């Protein structure tokens, strides 16, 4: 109105004006003390605001990485799902082989050979979580379109949807066992029917209840993410990622469990899932953990001490693993490093004690290495 720059000052400050507009604005500034002053004040506002402190509760950042890792791990489980499919198929074949001849012998004229109806004994089922995942892996019955991998993930409202799906499918166990090929259709129908029922009022975490996040927002966000990191193979990845993520029934269960809101069924599923993952994922994770510990290069005594503890914990957690012996030796070496870096007599003593314990054990394949290490230490009084 009066020719002052007004709202445009902010864009000028950010360098977000077209060259022509910018030139005009700068010309105006040369003659207008008021706008010049306002621009300076706006710049000062930014500078002041940068001093806006943010504090987290004590210890928060110490534990956050572990919490995130645990949640990622819980969601990663579906990678093992193909194994679960095979386990289920194998169980089905065994059941078929066992039950069919019996059924035929008992009632040759009335019992349809291909449809053994005996309920599956629970013992044959590898675990509930695995079964629950099977149909989800084959093709998830999703009512809403999945925008893409990112959006598909954790649109929070789906947490309870997936939970329900898992329960529904778990309930359809016997048909799944006796007729693996027909399982898809059966399970999907059941799930579809079940999904139509309103969700049990489960109070998810504060964030997860935000209704604004589901499909539209998630889709839009995935667009944003895609815009940041576009990849030609996006379509392929979508195809790959989707079953994985859709299959992720156990993770939300675990979350629910944490909230104390799990039904008996989902609790069972989560526990079984955890057991399954422990069994299948132990070796992979041990290797990862081993690799990370190997990569650590302590630069302070405290680092080295922590590393020694981490190696000890590793050996304790996986006493029969293939890296256990190396871990025991590395724990001793790290204790020595702690002593070398910090000169604390306590570290030296710990190193000696650990070395003595190692040498005193029945199995000490690297006895020579530890003895040599001991010889480099000053003699103990």
């Amino acid at each position, binding site marked *: 109105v009066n020719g002052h720059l007004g709202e*445009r000052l*902010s*864009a000028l400050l950010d360098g977000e004006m077209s060259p022509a507009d910018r030139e005009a604005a700068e010309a105006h500034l040369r003659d207008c003390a008021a706008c010049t002053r306002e621009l300076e004040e706006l710049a000062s506002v930014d500078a002041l605001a940068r001093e806006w402190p*943010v504090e987290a509760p004590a210890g928060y*950042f110490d534990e*956050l990485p572990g919490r995130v890792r645990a949640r990622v791990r819980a969601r990663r489980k579906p990678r093992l799902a193909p194994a679960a499919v095979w386990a289920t198929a194998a169980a089905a074949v065994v059941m078929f082989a066992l039950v069919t001849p019996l059924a035929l012998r008992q009632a040759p004229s009335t019992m349809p050979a291909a449809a053994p109806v005996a309920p599956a004994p629970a013992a044959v089922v590898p675990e509930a979580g695995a079964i629950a995942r099977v149909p989800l892996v084959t093709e998830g019955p999703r009512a809403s379109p999945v925008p893409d991998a990112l959006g598909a993930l954790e649109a929070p409202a789906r947490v309870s949807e997936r939970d329900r799906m898992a329960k529904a499918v778990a309930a359809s166990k016997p048909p799944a066992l006796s007729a693996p090929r027909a399982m898809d259709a059966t399970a999907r129908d059941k799930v579809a029917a079940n999904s139509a029922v309103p969700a049990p009022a489960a109070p998810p975490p504060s*964030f997860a209840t935000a209704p604004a996040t589901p499909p539209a927002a998630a889709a839009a966000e995935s667009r944003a993410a895609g815009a940041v990191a*576009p990849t030609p193979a996006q379509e392929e990845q979508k195809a790959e990622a989707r079953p994985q*993520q859709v299959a992720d029934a156990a993770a939300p269960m675990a979350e629910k469990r944490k909230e104390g809101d799990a039904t008996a069924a989902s609790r069972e599923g989560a526990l079984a899932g955890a057991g399954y993952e422990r069994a299948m994922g132990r070796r992979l994770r041990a290797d990862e953990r081993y690799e*990370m510990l190997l990569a650590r290069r302590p630069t302070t005594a405290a680092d080295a001490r922590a590393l020694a503890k981490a190696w000890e914990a590793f050996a304790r957690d996986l006493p029969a693993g293939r890296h256990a012996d190396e871990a025991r030796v590395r724990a001793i070496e790290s204790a020595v490093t702690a002593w070398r870096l910090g000169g604390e007599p306590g570290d030296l003593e710990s190193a000696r004690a650990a070395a003595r314990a190692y040498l005193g054990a029945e199995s000490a394949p690297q006895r020579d290495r530890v003895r040599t290490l001991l010889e480099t230490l000053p003699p103990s009084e």
Partner: protein
Amino acid sequence: MDVPSQADLDRGPQARAPGGPAVDAAEADLLSRARGGNLFAFEEIVKRYQRRVYATAMRIVRRHDVADDVVQEAFLRAHQALDRFDLARPFGPWICRIAANLAVNHVRSPQSREEALPEAHAETPVPGGSPLAGVLDEEARRQLARALESLSSDQRAVFVLRVFEELSYKEIAEALEISIGTVMSRLSRGRERLREALTPYLGAAMARRAEGAGR
């Protein structure tokens, strides 16, 4: 320049070089291992960025418990989308954009409107020895916190992404799913509001800026 700002502290040594991505090799290596399924590598990434992501979330949602949810969710989503992330780009702005989007969506939700902000939550005085001590006195900090809280969360989100993350208007528009025009007007109104609220302190801030520039 001025004393190290909170943004510098948030950002840490992995600061993005202005005008271009600066990706350090160690980070690219971690990301590539994380993409290959190495959870410990991903945990390292979380360690590197958690403060920055938390600060972004916290500045928008103003509640620790919500910020905590947002931060975890942001890292989970980033992990799931890692396959599509271009390793030649810096991770920080990307994860902060995800967090900002989640934060704003939370604040927009009806549920969040029912949750009142705890009184004076953001006004915890920074303990002595902080880099801020001596720059802003306690009263100024309190006024700053009040002024920032008086912005709408939408204005705050745009402001945070611009001033702390130094994103372009286009990047902000994409992250928050709004038009560039909206980014521009929210930023302008937000800054104007802050300018009014902070008038008594702007003189000193301007003097410091002038002094810094004259050095």
